[in-house]
C-alpha cells in the first residue's frame, strides 16, 4: 500500500523514510533488498530527482553512496542488519574519510527474527566504527530524524548510522509532509587526498579527526532536540530509545523518561542529571544491553537486562511485567493448533528441484531466499543455511574435509540474486581450489523473498526499465566451470537425470534451474491453464501430495466411502487439486503414474 492521502499522510516507517530522504534532498541512493528495509528504496525510486538503484550487495551499495557523498551530493545506503556485516568494510573506513555531501546509512534490525537468520544489534556498529547513530521510535519521528541526520552528517563531517527495527519499518502511522531541504555543499570533483586516500600516513591523521568529531558529537548530544527528558513521577525513571520508548510510555505513562533519539554517542551529563533525579533508574532497550553497558561504565547504577529480556522483541506487556511483576492480569491460554508455516507458492519452480533433492542422498548446503523454505516438510531438503552466499563455500569446505567420502554427496543451492550478491566469489574459490561439489543456481529472474525486486540477472533496473541481464552460463564458464547445464525445474524427471549426471562429475559442475517466479507480474497476467484431478483414477499413492504444493490437498476416506467411490477398500483417501490455486506448473502430473492428473482443457 503506497497510495497517499493529503496532509496528514498515513505511511509505514519505510514510506516515511523515503519521503524524508526526498525532502532532505538526497540525490543518490543504493542498497540491497532485505526485510524489513526493502520498501525504503522501492518507495524512494518513485520520487522525481533522486537516483536510486539496487546494488548487487550491501557493500557495493554503501560504496556507491560514499562515492556520491565524495562528489558532494546527499547520499543514502539502505540495508538490513546482516547487510551491514557485508558493508562493514567500507563503513569503518568511511568513518575516517568523513563526507562531502551528507551520507546516511540506514540499517533495519529484526528483533524476534521475523524474517532473518539472526537478531544482531546494529548499535554495536556505531560504537565499533566510531559513528553517530540515530534511532527513531515511530514513522513520524523517523521522518523528522532522517532529515536531521543529513544535517549532522555535513556539519560534523561524518557518515551517520540510522537504525530502525521491524516495528518502525513496517508500522504505519500518521505523518506530515515537510519542507524541502538541500545541501550547502557544491557538487563536483574535489581532490582531497589527505581526506579521501586512506593509506597509513593519511589514515593516522584522520584517526585524530575521528576522535575530535566524536568529542564534538558528545557535546552536541547534551543539547540535541532529540534527546529529551519528559518530566514525571520520579520514583521510577526510564532511559530508553527506539520502539522501546513507546512500550515504556504505554506501560508507565506517568513516569519520568529520558528518551534518546541518538543512541551513540551518549549525553553523559544529561544521563547523570536524570539518574540523580529519580529513585530507581531503569534502562529499557531491545536486544543487547547497549545503553546499559555504557551507562554502567559511567558508574551509574541502574536496572536493565537483569529485568528486561535480551532476546526477541519487547512489547508493552513484557516491559510492564519485567518492571512490575504484580501488575499482570491472567490471559486466556493458547490452544494447540496445526501450525501454518510459510510455503513455496503453488507453481513455484524451486519445488521441483527440492523434490528431486529430497529423493537423493545428498547434503544440501542452502542459502538465503524463498528457497530456504525447501527446508520445511514435506520436502525437508535443506541441511544448512548460514548467510547470503555461504552455500557455495560451505559445500566446498565439506568436500575438502571429507575428500572421496563427499563425492557425489554434497550439493549447494543458491538463488540468482544471492549468487550475484556473494555466491560468485565462493564459486571462484571452488574452481580455483578444485572440489567436485555441485552448485545448483535457482534462477527465477527476480529477488523474490523480499517482494519481487529486480537484480542484475533480471534484465530490468529498480524502476523496471531495461538493463543488462547477466548471462549466468557464460559467467560460470568464465570463472572456469567446464560443466554447465540449464534445466527446467518443472520437468522433474528430466531434471533428475541432469542432476544425477552432474553429481557423478569429477570436477565442479553447475546446474542452472531456470523458470520465472510465479509471482512475476507477467506470469500472473499470462493465461493459466490449471491442472485437475480425475478423482476416479486416483489410487491414493500420495506421490503428488509429497510435493507439498498448497494447491494439492489430501482427502481421507473411510473404507465405506472408498468403496462407494469405486476405490479398493484399503485406499485411504485421494488427492485433489484446487483449480483456483493451481498455477499450471505440471510438476504433479509428472509424478502421477496413474494418469489421474490432467490439464483443465482435457
Amino acid at each position, binding site marked *: *500500500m503506497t497510495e497517499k492521502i493529503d496532509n496528514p499522510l498515513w505511511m509505514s516507517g519505510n514510506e516515511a523514510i523515503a519521503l524524508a530522504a526526498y525532502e532532505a534532498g538526497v540525490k543518490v541512493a543504493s542498497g540491497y533488498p532485505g526485510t524489513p528495509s526493502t520498501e525504503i528504496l522501492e518507495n524512494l525510486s518513485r520520487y522525481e530527482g533522486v537516483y536510486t538503484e539496487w546494488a548487487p550487495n550491501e557493500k557495493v551499495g554503501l560504496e556507491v553512496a560514499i562515492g556520491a557523498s565524495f562528489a558532494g551530493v546527499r547520499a543514502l545506503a539502505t540495508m538490513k542488519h546482516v547487510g551491514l556485516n557485508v558493508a562493514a568494510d567500507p563503513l569503518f573506513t568511511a568513518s575516517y574519510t568523513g563526507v562531502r555531501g551528507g551520507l546516511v546509512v540506514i540499517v533495519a534490525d529484526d528483533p524476534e527474527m521475523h524474517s532473518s537468520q539472526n537478531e544482531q544489534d546494529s548499535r554495536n556498529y556505531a560504537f565499533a566504527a566510531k559513528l553517530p547513530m540515530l534511532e527513531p521510535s515511530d514513522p513520524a519521528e523517523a521522518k523528522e530524524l532522517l532529515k536531521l541526520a543529513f544535517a549532522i552528517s555535513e556539519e560534523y563531517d561524518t557518515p551517520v548510522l540510522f537504525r530502525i527495527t521491524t*516495528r518502525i519499518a513496517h508500522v504505519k502511522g500518521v505523518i506530515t509532509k515537510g519542507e524541502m531541504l538541500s545541501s550547502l555543499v557544491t557538487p563536483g570533483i574535489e581532490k582531497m587526498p589527505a581526506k579521501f586516500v586512506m593509506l597509513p600516513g593519511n589514515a593516522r591523521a584522520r584517526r585524530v579527526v575521528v576522535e575530535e568529531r566524536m568529542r564534538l558529537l558528545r557535546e552536541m548530544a547534551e543539547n540535541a532536540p532529540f534527546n529529551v527528558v519528559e518530566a514525571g513521577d520520579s520514583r521510577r525513571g526510564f532511559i530508553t530509545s527506539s520502539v522501546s520508548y513507546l512500550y515504556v510510555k504505554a506501560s508507565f505513562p506517568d513516569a519520568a523518561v529520558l528518551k534518546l533519539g541518538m543512541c551513540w554517542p551518549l549525553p553523559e551529563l544529561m544521563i547523570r542529571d536524570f539518574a540523580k533525579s529519580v529513585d530507581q533508574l531503569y534502562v529499557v532497550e531491545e536486544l543487547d544491553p547497549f545503553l546499559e553497558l555504557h551507562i554502567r561504565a559511567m558508574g551509574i547504577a541502574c536496572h536493565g537486562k537483569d529485568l528486561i529480556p535480551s532476546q526477541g522483541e519487547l512489547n508493552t506487556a513484557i516491559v510492564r511485567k519485567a518492571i512490575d511483576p504484580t501488575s499482570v492480569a491472567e490471559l486466556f491460554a493458547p490452544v494447540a493448533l496445526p501450525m501454518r508455516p510459510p510455503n*513455496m507458492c503453488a507453481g513455484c519452480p524451486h519445488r521441483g528441484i527440492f523434490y528431486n533433492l529430497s529423493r537423493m542422498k545428498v547434503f544440501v548446503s542452502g542459502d538465503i531466499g524463498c528457497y530456504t523454505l525447501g527446508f520445511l516438510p514435506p520436502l525437508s531438503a535443506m541441511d544448512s543455511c548460514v548467510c547470503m552466499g555461504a552455500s557455495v563455500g560451505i559445500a566446498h569446505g565439506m568436500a575438502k574435509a571429507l575428500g572421496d567420502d563427499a563425492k557425489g554427496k554434497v550439493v549447494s543451492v543458491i538463488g540468482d540474486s544471492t549468487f550475484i550478491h556473494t555466491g560468485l566469489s565462493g564459486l571462484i574459490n571452488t574452481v580455483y581450489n578444485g572440489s567436485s561439489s555441485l552448485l545448483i543456481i535457482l534462477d527465477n529472474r527476480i529477488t523474490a523473498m523480499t517482494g519481487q525486486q529486480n537484480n542484475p540477472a533480471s534484465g530490468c533496473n529498480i524502476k523496471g526499465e531495461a538493463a543488462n541481464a547477466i548471462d549466468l552460463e557464460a559467467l560460470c564458464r568464465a570463472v572456469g566451470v567446464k560443466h554447465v547445464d540449464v534445466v527446467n525445474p518443472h520437468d522433474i524427471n528430466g531434471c533428475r537425470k541432469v542432476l544425477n549426471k552432474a553429481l557423478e562429475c569429477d570436477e565442479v559442475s553447475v546446474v542452472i534451474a531456470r523458470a520465472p517466479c510465479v509471482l512475476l507480474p507477467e506470469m500472473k497476467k499470462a493465461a493459466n491453464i490449471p491442472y485437475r484431478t480425475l478423482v476416479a483414477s486416483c489410487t491414493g499413492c*500420495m506421490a503428488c*501430495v509429497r510435493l507439498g504444493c498448497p494447491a494439492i490437498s489430501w482427502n481421507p476416506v473411510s473404507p465405506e466411502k472408498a468403496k462407494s467411490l469405486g476405490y479398493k477398500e484399503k485406499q485411504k483417501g485421494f488427492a485433489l487439486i484446487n483449480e483456483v490455486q493451481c498455477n499450471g506448473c505440471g510438476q504433479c502430473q509428472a509424478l502421477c503414474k496413474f494418469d489421474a492428473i490432467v490439464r483443465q482443457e482435457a
Partner: protein
Amino acid sequence: MGAQGNILFSGVGGQGILLASEIMAYALLAAGYDAKKSEVHGMAQRGGSVTAQLRYGDKVYSPLIEPGRADIQVAFEMMEAVRYLPYLHKGSTVIVNTQKILPPSVATGQTSYPENVLDHITALGIRVVLVDAFDLAREVGEVRTANVVMVGAVSTFLPMDASVYEGIISARVPARFRDVNLQAFAAGRKVSQ
C-alpha cells in the same frame, strides 16, 4: 481519555488482510483518531499465518496490541480466529469468516483440521459473529472481495457511518471494481447489523 481500541486482524497470506486493515485505518483516521498499525512482511507471506494489529485512540504509543487487550478480532479463517486467543478478553468480539484453509500438515494428510474449532472461543463466553464472507463475495460477483465483506461486518462495531467506509473504498479500489466492492461492503454490514 476518549474512545480507544485495538483491532487484531488474523488470517492466511493472500486473503487481502492488509487491504482490509488499511480501509479500517483510514476510516478511523477520518473520524479523527490517532492510529498505528503493525504488520510483518516477508516470511509471513507465502501462505503463512498473517496478522495486522490496528490501534486507535487520542494518542497511540505502542504499535503492538498487548495480549488480553484486543477488543475486536477480525479473523479471515476459522482456525486463525483461535490461534490468537491470548490476545482476547471477556468483552472481545470475534468476527469470523467461516472459510477453512488447510495448513500444509492437514493438506498432506498428517493431521486433521480441528473440528468445531470456534468452541474454544465461545466456551469462554466471548461473542463470535460468523460471516460467510466467501459466499457473500461470490454472490456479489467477485470472490476476491471477501476481505471487503469482512470490513462491512466489522464496521457496525465502530462509531463511523457507512458513508465513511464507502468513500474510502471508492477512493482506494480501481474504478472497475468499485461497485462490486461497495456491494461486498454492504453485504458484510448486513450480517452484523
